[in-house]
């Protein structure tokens, strides 16, 4: 009796499978994707990203030597300089300094850059 009980509980504790999973990763698709990347315009979709995440004082503000992102011209100049915006914000995700852009903003920026960065 003792042996059977010991074996039973030993087996239960030792032979069971250990997994490391979470429900977020089990979910294969984003169920509600509210991020739209169709028919973007610079004025309504892209400029707010720069205004919110890049143009702060001491960063890419007016007259900054790192590049002035307060105007389309300043942004375009950085894009023309070896596609630096795509490299830092999308590929390397080292800009903004504090934390990478949110997923949806990265996707919007990518779509806009892919479309040739129009000033619309």
């Amino acid at each position, binding site marked *: 009796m003792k042996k059977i009980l010991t074996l039973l509980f030993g087996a239960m504790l030792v032979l*069971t499978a250990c997994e490391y*999973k979470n429900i977020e990763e089990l979910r294969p698709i984003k169920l509600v994707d509210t991020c739209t990347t169709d028919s973007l315009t610079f004025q309504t979709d892209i400029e707010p990203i720069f205004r919110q995440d890049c143009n702060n004082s001491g960063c890419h503000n007016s007259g900054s030597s790192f590049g002035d992102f307060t105007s389309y011209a300043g942004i375009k100049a950085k894009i023309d300089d070896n596609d630096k915006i795509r490299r830092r914000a999308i590929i390397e995700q080292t800009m903004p300094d504090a934390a990478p852009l949110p997923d949806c903003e990265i996707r919007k920026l990518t779509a806009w850059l892919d479309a040739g960065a129009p000033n619309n």
Partner: protein
Amino acid sequence: MKKVLFASCLLAFVLGSIAQETTNHTAATFNDTRIVNGQSVETNEEGQLKFLISHRFGLISEGFDNFFGLDQATIRLGLDYGVTDRFTVGIGRSSFEKTVDGFAKYKILRQSSGAKNTPVTITWQSNAAIRTADFSEIPGVDYDFANRMTYGHQVMIARKFCDEFSAQLMPTFIHRNLVETREEENDLFAIGAATRYQLTKTISFQAEYYYVLPNQMADEFTNSLSLGFDIQTKSHVFQLHISNSQGMIDKFFISETREDFFKGDVFFGFNFSRNFQLKGKKYK
């Protein structure tokens, strides 16, 4: 009162040191094998079957509408059996998530005085739990059997300082095969502390707290704190308590406690146990 208590503690310690010829193992560090939600160092006697009924009601803060939580209850029914005086196995079933759990518990070291002097009692406990309730359906998500499993291991180190007072520390490890979010760790480390203070011959006060080490749980979860009283009769122990945890097995109260004890979000609950002697002397 404090002086008397201190003197009696000291006397017990001194007398214990003087009586050198035989080894006296300390009995009843805690009155039962459970403190409130968690286990104590105590194990069943050989051949003893313990039937445990545990209830946790709803939040007391819900007020009169829900009769201070008594309208809703979760329950765990358990059977623990003492294979030897130091080795106990048990199974149980909780209504919460329809969870079935099993554990094995071994008393590695017994506190003793006399010829052999051991300062503490150490008990090891391992457990596993299976959620049998269905998961909430999420389109595209397939769950497998292993997702339902949780495991736990715990070392309990306790000392009975004198007849009135015992304390216990319990480093605990819990592994959950499935958690909700990426932020939560599947492996979780916690340390528990518990104490017993004997108020009268049959009534004692218990406190139990589990501190989960930081950055392992989602923000909504918190540490478990429970306070309660044990009332002993010859073959029963009644435990009445309040706790901010509603679950009664390790994975529920250590890793899934949501309520804030100090905001008054507590559950009233009780454990009730009845012992049956299946082997050896029936009445001692």
